[in-house]
């Protein structure tokens, strides 16, 4: 199942883990999007980011990915501050497909990692099969449905052979069968030693996948706990209300 995923042992050099957010604040003009986030992402089972719309999940993922800089505080990867690393990959909330066929999108990511041409075709085929898109391999990627594009984006991120994989609501527009398929891939990927950091709105899904949970409200970490702890006995009133299905803003 996870033959395409490479565990930690496959990576030479220094690790990007743990990712440490140290009082990291992100502002856009006068708006504070993330407010003094202190958080450590360690190797192990997936870390699930949950929280209401606009609480800062996507921004936290971009910060952890190194796509944006903290306005104050800092983020370190394995103790280092260099943001650029080929060992992280991500699936955006709204993935952008290159103007090429589905398979060419994956081969592009493989090529960017220096995978040889012959090997590209073989691995792209395996990844497309994995996400259930093999029959659409020659379709222009931008003509795929929203759910198909989301799965293709997951395959493309996996093609980068990451040590840390950020997923921003990767099942948001998927039907139940595809959601289950993606959850299986996430589990297999995590089992193969890849650290998954994933935003989700689906509490059931968070329960099924999470090793630990980071609960965001209005740009702050309201609670961080082991999954078993969080879903059974949340510590904060906000988390209690959120889990009950009450409106948290």
């Amino acid at each position, binding site marked *: 199942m996870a033959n395409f995923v490479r565990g930690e042992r496959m990576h030479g050099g220094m690790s990007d883990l743990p990712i440490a957010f140290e009082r990291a604040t992100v502002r856009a003009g006068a708006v504070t999007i993330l407010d003094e986030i202190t958080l450590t992402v360690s190797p192990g089972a997936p870390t699930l980011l949950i929280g209401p719309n606009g609480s800062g999940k996507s921004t936290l993922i971009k910060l952890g990915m190194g796509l944006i800089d903290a306005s104050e505080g800092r983020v370190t990867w394995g103790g280092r501050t260099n943001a650029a690393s080929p060992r992280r990959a991500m699936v955006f909330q709204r*993935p952008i497909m290159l*103007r*090429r066929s589905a398979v060419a999108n994956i081969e592009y990511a493989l090529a*960017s990692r220096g995978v040889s041409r012959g090997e590209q075709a073989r691995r792209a085929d395996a990844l497309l099969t994995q996400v259930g898109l093999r029959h659409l391999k020659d379709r222009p990627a*931008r003509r795929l449905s929203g759910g198909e594009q989301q799965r293709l984006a997951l395959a493309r991120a996996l093609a980068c052979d990451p040590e840390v994989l950020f997923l921003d609501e990767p099942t948001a527009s998927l039907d139940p069968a595809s959601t289950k398929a993606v959850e299986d891939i996430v589990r297999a990927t995590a089992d193969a030693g890849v650290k998954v950091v994933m935003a989700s709105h689906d509490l059931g899904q968070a329960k099924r996948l999470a090793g630990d949970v980071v609960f965001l409200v209005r740009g702050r970490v309201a609670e961080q706990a082991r999954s078993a702890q969080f879903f059974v006995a949340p510590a904060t009133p906000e988390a209690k209300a959120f889990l009950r299905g009450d409106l948290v803003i």
Partner: protein
Amino acid sequence: MSEGASALELIFSGDSDLYSIVGLSLYVSLSAVALAAVVGFPLGAFLALVNFPGRSFVVVVLNAFMGLPPVVVGLAVFLLLSRSGPLGFLGILFTPRAMIVAQALLVLPIIAALARQTIEDLWTEYRDELTAMRIGPAGRVATLLYDARFSLMTTLLAGFGRAAAEVGTVMIVGGNIDGFTRTMTTAIALETSKGDLPLAMGLGIVLISLVIAVNGIAWGVRRYGELRAG
């Protein structure tokens, strides 16, 4: 419409003067567009991707230069290439080469400005994904040029249309020498002033047909490519 009738006769009789004029026009304009693209595409990509002081100024000037008057470009190239000019030693004034250089300068702003806009729009869309995939500067340019290839073809067409239709630069730096630097547009101007309206008309019809044919081929290629690549 007797002029029109004899114009058509001329075209279909395979008049060799006519065909050498048409051939030279195509050769000069296509070469000029190719030359301008070699410089204009990288220049457009550079302006789209790299921020430097004065960038907005360069972009505005480039956009304004899309409407350069051909006679002014012709004059400038003439001064450069004339025997006492800085590039006079090349000895290419009144040759097809000089015409290619002049037309290339004329369409360079068109190609660079349109390419910059196209590439910048695509970059806005691709930026986050390509940054997340850690694609370096050279890879970005290659990816954007490749993925924008069908839009960039329209850019080339705009350049070709401009080059094929203009008369000012080729007249000044080519000199309209019979059998050597005479193009369709300079011939039309000459024949009209001489009063040989059938020949002028025939040339005009051929010129317009060629431009339509080139655009038709490009349209077909673009449709085909879009169907395959999205």
